[in-house]
């Protein structure tokens, strides 16, 4: 167990933005919430799964909806507490702790806010190890953990409890309900015992996010290149350096889809990189050859500052470095891969682990 204080939150937010793989939205609001709650209620305990009892009940918490709305209708804070308690009440057990279902963007820090307010621990694990846009897209789904019972609450005090036949159905119903709540809602879902999570969850992701954030901060301080430092920490591959030469973006069914091209420079002079995205960066090709695809992580970083560039922020002329790194091993099991493989997103190619692509 260790304690998370205000300084840790800043690092976690930077690291989570990189793990967001271009999605997950800006963690600024979530970071402020966590920071203010820690100021008021004190530091938060971060536990590993091994430090808890196998029978302890963990209830993950998150926010869902439109990021544009989240910067205007700021959260009440009570909404996430209410969703968390509602789930505990429905299951008939008191949750021991909370955790993230997504370690990219805003949802990486929301559970820390909740934990500070309730004086409960956060568990150092999550359900994605990155960001994905839909509720069922977790290794927990593949590991047999149900997203139901599912609780969603708004600032008014409405609580929706749902017990759906599949995690995909949770996504379908929740997505349409959240519009009525004003396009953002707080959710609690995927309640599970520590024993279940030991087998299914991705371990150590809060610590990993923090380590990435700290690496970026220290590299900037020492005037070293943050991109190289990040690549080393995540055990990744430098796919490309260059500038964005074209961005094609459209919104379809509520999701941002599109592609970008980059022209190589330095060692990559003369090469062209093609990136396809749908809220997250999903498929990378260099001169037509696939080099990395979902669910492996793709981070597009500002080549000087190492700041991650989200799909919404991609713009012609930006000087970027692209790194790809392996997803959590759980994603590579068939049941998990089916949820987030390139074909699920409409790209007609097989998934090949990024390190294998680079070995050949």
């Amino acid at each position, binding site marked *: 167990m260790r304690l998370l204080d205000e300084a840790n939150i800043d690092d976690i937010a930077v690291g989570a933005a990189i793990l967001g793989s271009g999605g997950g939205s800006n963690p600024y609001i979530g970071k402020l*919430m966590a920071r203010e709650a820690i100021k008021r209620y004190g530091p938060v305990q971060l536990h590993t799964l091994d430090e808890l009892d196998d029978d302890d009940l963990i209830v993950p918490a998150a926010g869902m909806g439109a990021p*544009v*709305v989240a910067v205007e*209708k700021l*959260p*009440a804070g009570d909404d996430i507490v209410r969703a968390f308690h509602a789930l505990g009440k429905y299951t008939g057990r008191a949750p021991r702790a909370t955790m993230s279902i997504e370690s990219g963007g805003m949802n990486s820090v929301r559970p820390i806010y909740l934990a500070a307010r309730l004086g409960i621990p956060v568990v150092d694990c999550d359900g994605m190890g990155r960001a994905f846009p839909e509720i069922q897209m977790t290794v927990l789904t593949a590991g047999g953990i149900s997203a139901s019972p599912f609780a969603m609450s708004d600032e*008014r005090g409405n609580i929706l409890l749902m017990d759906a036949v599949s995690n995909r159905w949770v996504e379908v119903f929740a997505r349409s309900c959240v519009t009525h709540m*004003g396009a953002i809602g707080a959710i609690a879902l995927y309640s599970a015992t520590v024993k279940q999570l030991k087998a299914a969850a991705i371990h150590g992701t809060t610590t990993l996010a923090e380590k990435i954030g700290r690496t970026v901060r220290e590299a900037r301080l020492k005037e070293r290149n943050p991109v190289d430092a990040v690549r080393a920490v995540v055990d990744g591959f430098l796919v490309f350096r260059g*500038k964005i*030469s074209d961005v094609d973006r459209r919104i379809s069914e509520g999701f941002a889809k599109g592609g970008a091209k980059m022209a190589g420079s330095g060692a990559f002079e003369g090469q062209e990189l093609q990136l396809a995205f749908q809220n997250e960066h999903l498929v990378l090709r260099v001169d037509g050859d696939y080099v990395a695809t979902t669910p492996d992580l793709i981070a597009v970083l500002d080549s000087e500052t190492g700041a991650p560039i989200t799909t919404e922020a991609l713009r012609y002329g930006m000087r970027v470095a692209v790194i790809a790194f392996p997803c959590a091993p759980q994603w590579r099991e068939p049941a998990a891969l089916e949820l987030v493989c390139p074909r699920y997103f409409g790209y007609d190619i097989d998934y090949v682990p990024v390190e294998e692509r680079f070995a050949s």
Partner: protein
Amino acid sequence: MRIGIDVGGTNTDAVLMDGTSVVSSTKTPTTANVSEGIARALRDVIEDSGIDTAAIDGVMIGTTHFTNAVVERKHLTPTACIRLGLPATVCLPPMVDWPLDLRDIVGGNAHLAHGGHEFDGREISAFEPDEVRDIAEKIKAAGLNAIAISSVFSPVNSIFEEQSAEIVRSVIPGANITLSSEIGRIGLLERENAAIMNSCLRQLAARTVDGFKAALDELQITSPFYISQNDGTLMNAEFAKEYPVLTFASGPTNSMRGAAFLSGLKDAIVVDVGGTTTDIGVLQHGFPRVAALAVEIGGVRTNFRMPDTYSIGLGGGSLISPPSHTSPLSRGESTLKVGPRSVGYELTEKALVFGGDVLTATDVIVAGGSQDIGDAGAVADLDRDLVAAVQARIMEMIAIAVDRMKTSATPVPVIVVGGGSILVTGAVEGASEIIKPDHFPVANAIGAAIAQVGGECDRIFSLAELSRDEALDQAKQEASDRAVNAGAAAESVDIVDVEEVPLAYLPGNATRIMVKAVGDLVEAG
């Protein structure tokens, strides 16, 4: 005739313009008392041209004074904030992300009340007049007169902010109230921050604007005068006293508008070379492209429509390394550095051509023979290869920065302005042409002189009830109406910018539309 004045951190520039031609211009040091500097600049251009002050139709002033007040934490009035949005927004109250020293000065007097709207216009909760009245009583008891009022999604519907203002005025007659909907766009904390800073600055604004007026009176200039805003349009003196925050970052905007005017181009890249830095911006339809991200002023996040500029550490005073021309041991490009360190405003003492002992970018340009500044003899024996390498490096730095700001690979015209323009000696890769207009050192004052008045609309439309065309028409009408209200001649109003952003992660078709309209000032009398 119009006079344009730009009060910067270092220099106060002024131009006298007759229609579209520059009659006279001046550069004088900025003074601690801003009005004195303005009076001196005015006197310079009037005496230089010998015109009768009765022939002056308007004086346009761009100033960084209010930005500096926030940055330096000076002359700020303690201000309360009322936010309408309960039960939402509780966990992040007003001023939550301000630097502590500034929050202490402003007082941290924040209140939350019911009200606010959803993105689609529904109410979050019913407005409660008695609740706002009780808050107003508390603010009154605390002895405060300056108040900012914000409401969730007030850019969509500002009714609750307006109703609250009425109640506060009934409790505190003559209260200084800023509504967030009058100032910013979507992004509650940033818009609210701007509203609070605005109320903080109003006392200073009243004094400063009165000071400008006194400076004009002293010179018997009876024409109306205007202050430039960060979007490149003007506000009159009374409006400027009400909305001082709208001057934040008006300097770069004026520079770019001046560049557009001087070159006659509406779509181009502007490279403004100063003594220490070069700012690169993009002109679209004659106006600066707006920054997409939050911009910090004195440590406080705001989301004004600030010009999107990219700065590099290159200017007339940039230091050249290898530092000494007498020992050019390493001529390789890998070790050659231009900037970011600079002698800055001390250029005229420290540069070699001015008798100093520091090798600056200006010295190299003079040695290259394209400029005759100071004592060219002082740089006559500079290594030729070094001179060529430095010039190439400067052009490379500019080319990379220009490319970074472009929106496509198509070559575009590049307009070079600012006192350091002499640094640009060749072609810029990716530029269709390089234009160095006359009067380039005072482009910012010219930008102030030629400014128009504008209006904006920025809100979310639900395309369930409206067609896209209807929504666009409605937004354009709202923006045009606002321009006319701000003093534009109705027949001259033009739509200069339309931006649509569909909302991601939402089913249904909600889209945010931002429209900007501008028109010529209705001539006084």
